[in-house]
């Protein structure tokens, strides 16, 4: 009979770990501004190449979001701010149970949508490195 119970308890543990991880992370990011503290790990890609990756500035953006400064958050990383509601929704669906969980991936499985997303993130990563006026707003 323990094999029958194994799956739900493992899922519960995963959910608990998710909530705890996100909670601790959010608390640290809320308390300490990455622009002023040294202990946040730097972006390895940026350290190696000097280029901005699609994720550069995401921790600073999250700090600004946690303090309600959406405009400044967008200045650090537009992609993270756009992705945040969608990631939050997916996380909630995962925590809430099967119905929502099954419904959201069914939307995300439309191939054109996923390809558009891959293209958008790739383009974002390239454009934010262009050192000219409209594009440099995308750099952190």
């Amino acid at each position: 009979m323990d094999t029958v119970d194994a799956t739900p308890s493992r899922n519960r543990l995963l959910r608990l770990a998710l909530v705890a991880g996100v909670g601790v992370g959010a608390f640290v990011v809320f308390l300490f501004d990455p622009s002023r503290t040294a202990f946040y790990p730097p972006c390895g890609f940026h350290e190696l190449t000097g280029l901005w990756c699609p994720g550069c500035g995401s921790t600073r953006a999250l700090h600004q979001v946690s303090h309600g400064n959406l405009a400044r958050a967008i200045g650090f990383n537009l992609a993270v701010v756009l992705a945040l509601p969608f990631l939050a929704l997916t996380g909630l669906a995962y925590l809430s149970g099967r119905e929502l969980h099954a419904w959201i991936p069914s939307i995300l499985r439309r191939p054109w949508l996923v390809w558009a997303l891959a293209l958008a993130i790739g383009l974002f990563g390239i454009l934010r490195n262009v050192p000219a006026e409209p594009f440099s707003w995308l750099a952190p």
Partner: protein
Amino acid sequence: MYRLIGGDGKEYGPVTADQLRQWVAEGRVSAETRVRMEGSHDWKSLSAFPEFAAQAGASAPPSVAPPASPARATMPQGQISTYLVPSILCTLFCCLPFGIVAIIYAAQVGSKQGSGDFAGAMESSRKAKMWCWLSFGIGLTVSLIWVAIYLVAIVGGLAQR
């Protein structure tokens, strides 16, 4: 022999245990699929059958698609995990181009499944998962090393005072 209810609400079977196991492996039958033994009258979820519980729990994509009738067994309809959300998380928070590779494989899963290439979709799903873990593993390792160096520096600074 077993009978089961597909995602379309229709009854399928009788099928052998081996056939059922293969459907689980292909993601066409999930742990929640209603199954009954031939000759028995109570429907139970697949995970309540000890002979399938371990396998159904191990490969747990929440299947919503029906298992095709045995005649259509060459065109599986199950849901394959795309790993899209982990790919996006890795791209935005692990700071590695690997995340983009994972997103591209995630995109391939849906396209290939749409065109009926089930094996190809499974392969893309596997690769998306691999790149996610690679990206996450490297990101986590670098972060932990960084925090460790930072802590050592602080402790060293305190010791010198």
